[in-house]
């Protein structure tokens, strides 16, 4: 369990990093918090020619208010994000989701951007970005792109990020104060990737849902936006919500698979339940008779 030989570079600016990535012609891998990359290197499942360590680029760190939302620098450690007052105020669901990412020890090293960019389908950060309507900002020597999170993920560990591109920010739009937070996951042990999980936010205006952003994790090859459920919720009065029916619509958008830890049927069965339970608890609505 020792990595194959590689070159190591540690640029201090974004443009320098982009230049290295461009020059490498696809042979470089970006090292953020290393919580996934280091094991993959050690297992020799990843054998890049160059490891580009972006830990020394100050511009990639920190959380700030920007453009009617919150901008999270990709190199922000998960532990720092978890303790961040701006996130707690504007995006409480991010804080809730972050508390389920790995363990104290891994969050001290792991980064928000690393998790978003990796695209593990059962992880919390990609699904949260999709649910909240985040935009992923990327840069290369060719220029910059802003990619909506729900168009970013293509498959397990596959994204639209090109080999020469670097994630420079994740921009989360604001959800109005007092919005309703949705979060629940089922994992075999605390800190494990979820067997099934759901994350999202709802805005309730005058007794009706006016905006909904909900995504699944662990329910398919990518984080999956629960579009049918969102559509059914928007415009619906709280008293008229049939949580069970919405949960069924939500599961209809998923494509879970069997693995060593749980079957697809388990994920669908339990997913539907946790979705309905979460919706009822968040909206304080009673089970439909």
């Amino acid at each position: 369990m020792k990595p194959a030989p590689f070159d190591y570079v540690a640029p201090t600016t974004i443009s320098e990093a982009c230049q290295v990535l461009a020059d490498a012609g696809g042979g470089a891998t970006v090292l953020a918090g290393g919580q996934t990359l280091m094991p993959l290197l050690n297992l020799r499942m990843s054998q890049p020619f160059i490891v580009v360590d972006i830990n020394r680029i100050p511009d990639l760190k920190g959380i700030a208010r920007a453009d009617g939302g919150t901008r999270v620098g990709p190199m922000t450690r998960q532990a720092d994000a978890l303790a961040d007052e701006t996130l707690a105020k504007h995006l409480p669901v991010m804080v809730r989701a972050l508390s389920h990412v790995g363990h104290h020890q891994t969050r001290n090293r792991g980064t928000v951007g690393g998790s978003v960019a990796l695209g593990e389908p059962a992880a919390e950060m990609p699904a949260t970005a999709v649910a909240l309507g985040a935009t992923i900002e990327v840069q290369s020597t060719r220029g910059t792109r802003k990619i909506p999170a729900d168009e970013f993920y293509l498959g397990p560990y596959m994204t639209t990020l090109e080999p020469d591109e670097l994630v420079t920010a994740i921009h989360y739009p604001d959800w109005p104060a007092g919005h309703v937070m949705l979060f629940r996951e089922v994992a075999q042990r605390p800190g494990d990737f979820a067997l099934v999980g759901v994350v999202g936010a709802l805005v309730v205006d005058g007794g009706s849902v006016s905006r909904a952003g909900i995504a699944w994790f662990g329910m398919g090859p990518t984080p999956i936006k629960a579009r049918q459920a969102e559509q059914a919720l928007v415009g619906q009065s709280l008293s008229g919500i049939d949580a069970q029916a919405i949960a069924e619509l939500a599961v209809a958008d998923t494509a879970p698979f069997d693995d060593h830890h749980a079957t697809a049927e388990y994920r669908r069965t339990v997913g539907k339940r946790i979705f309905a339970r979460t919706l009822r608890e968040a909206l304080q609505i009673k089970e439909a008779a």
Partner: protein
Amino acid sequence: MNAEVPGIGAAARYIGKRVLRKEDPRLLTGRGQFVDDISLPGMLHCAFARSPIARGRIVSIDSTAARDVPGVHAVYTAEDLAKVSFTMHTFFMVPTSVKTPTLAEDHVAYVGEPVALVIADSRYIAEDAASLIEVDYEEEDPVVTLADAKSGQPVHPELEHNIAGQMGDEDIDEDLEAAIEGAPHRVTQRVIHPRISQSPMETRGVVATRDGPEELTLYITCQSPHTIARWVSLALGLPQTAIRVIAKDVGGAFGLKNHPWKEESSVIIAAMLFGRPLKWIEDRYENLTTANPAREQDITLRIAFDNDGKLVASHSEYDLNNGAYPQAVDDGMAAQMFLWSAYKLPAYGFLTRAWYTNTTGLAAYRGPWAMETLVRETALDKAARAIGIDPVELRRRNLVKLSDQPTASVLGLPLEDITPAECLEKLVENFDIAAFRKEQAEAREQGRYLGLGVATYIEPTASAGSMGVMTGELAQVRIEPTGKVTATMSTHSQGHGTATTMAQVIADRLGVPYEDVTVFEGDNSRGGFGPGAAGSRQGVIAGGAAIKASEMLADKVKALAAHLLNANPENITIDEGMVHVEGAEEMSRSLSEIAGIAYGEPDRLPQDLGTGLEVQYRYQPPPMTFTSAAHACVVEVDAETGFVKILRWISSEDCGTVINPAVVEGQISGGLAQGIGMVLLEEMPIDDRGNTTAATYKDYLLPAISDIPDFEFLHANTPSKSIGGMRGVGEGGAIIGPPTLVNAIADALSPFGEIDILELPLTPSRILDLIEGRDISGSAARHQAQAGAQLEAPAAAEAAAPAGQAAAPSSGAETRIDGDWKMVMKTPMGDQEMTGHFETDGGTVSGYLASPEGDQNFTGTVDGNVVKFDLKVDKPMKITLKYNLTFEGDSVSGKVKLGMMGSAKLSGERL
């Protein structure tokens, strides 16, 4: 005032106290010495090229590219290692029953089998080079599962089948069958236990260095440096004195590290060939995918009860996947021996078989026979629900109580002082079952599912003398000229805290402060031979040795002090390092003063007392000491998700004299954690090509601290018959944990029905299967597919059956019985060869069986070509062997009933 310790017969000074562990300051400040901490001048590093396929012929190995990597010193294959004669032995110190190569020779038999060894400047370079070794394989279809083993091609070409070992009767006894089928209540329990990983925190590893032509030093993570030296000596055929083995600290072993296996052996041989120190540290990927795993067993137990819930009869059929090269064949006999030992069962029969497959070979694992407790205790709860009797009451009616003893188990095991019934009573005294049932009923009305599980068991511990490898232990205790105490012990700790518990015992019995005692272990050049940690034995045997040695040493101090102080030895006491004369406080002397005289002033010693203050004592305890326990656990099952939460867990164990409650509770807790892992999380999945598919801890789920409740402990403290009264406690938690938890889950789920087949782990998917009455986990579909496959291949199964099955007597065949026959009996201890001489006279037969152990005469009966006779033997135990032989032409075959050991097959031919 300290209470008297019943096993000691004196007031406790340190025995029974939660003193701080002597090991901890070193370990907690990062100063432990594990194998990877060893770095020797000139040391090089090793990595293995391993087989990517489960079964196939090696056509060629090309290591040219690997050798060309800068920093690579050598690449060895089996051909190179063959320059050193090396025979792989089992845990029992006999050569393995199938030839077990170190590096694969002409074929590979499991995925990950080491094929070549690279020696390089660093592990990085060694791994780079190993990946460049090109091996051309001719791949064959592997035998992976137990079902494959029964119908598939033999894993080992030298065998005609895949049976690694077999005990018991293939055909169930008619009377037993009738007793079971005729009983008013019957229950069947099938348990399928997956393969699990050993996962010690410190993986396997060795630093081997050849210090001279005939001198070898090994730093190896192990369970006893003495056992390693013995094993390596036998494997190499070198005198043991030339082998030094050091293992100061060990990060867990659990059975995996009883002795070296293919990897460590390859490194040892390579070090002898290459001449420079070599290091190999197993990485976690290697550990999970190729280190010897545990379990993978399938047992079906049938139990019959009378109308009062009393046991009538029972039968089990038990299969164990031993992999390709098990460290020692496990045929499940130990499990059978203890399955019903603690219960009053009139009749029992079994068939147990070990199977070879193209998977990594089995190693012992904490409580290797644990399936017996799991299947019995879960079956008893199933029965309790079926009969409508409280599970505690069902056990009460059937357990062997102290007042029933001495007695013997259904298989003839003598029982003198087991206390599972007493542990159970102590448990229920401390747990309000009625209150729980009320809470449970109320919770159910709210849709919450609580469950209570209770289980009892006994465990054979401190085995000594019954198996050659399990010996006594030696304690060498000396009072240094400074008055401080040094002990060199044959013990070895993999986290057991023996340096603490042995110091407690010595301080207590010698009368010195605990801080003044230092225990040295972990090096075969220190102390005497001892098998270390294997079978919950050190506290009992080494503890007894330390007590006796300390008492002998105290007597010497008293004799010397009496002489010096002109007092009666009986009036002298030693306390906290001071020697006192009763009623004469002014005459008190420090132990250091007495020691100074003992070593330095021989003129002042009495004539018959030698100089110095040192004693050694090797303790040979009773052959076996039983530990008993009853545990209770409360869970809540989330019916929506199938998740289990453990709410409470109480252990009521009887390990006799408790030397240190914190150490005892630590042992039980660790075992229970493994038990919880086995029930809820752990499984090493293997695909149909024999690949283990959980290669990291992301996929192989061990219980974490968040999954383990705070355990509560009750200690019964019934002294054993060994010195000090201790009973072993190392493995118990891992044995009784699983059925306790399963029973709690089954109780919680009882409104939904019974768990039909208990397949572990009880994942959330499997729990929902029962709650919803449908196959969410896919387990039922898999069982059906396997059962179907077995039905489709009866011919192959028949062909794979071992030879020697008693053929039906063929009437009219001309068979002459009289004369000499060469015969082989397959026994648990290996093949026994003998010559049988038979003389028939009408319906009677007489003759003798001649073997290297001597001749034994017999008389018996003849019916056609069937001969029956009985022989009584004393070794290895007193049993009557019942021979039933069928003669056909020039061959003879049949069965020999070995009393409690089941049956052995016999075959032979005319001389």
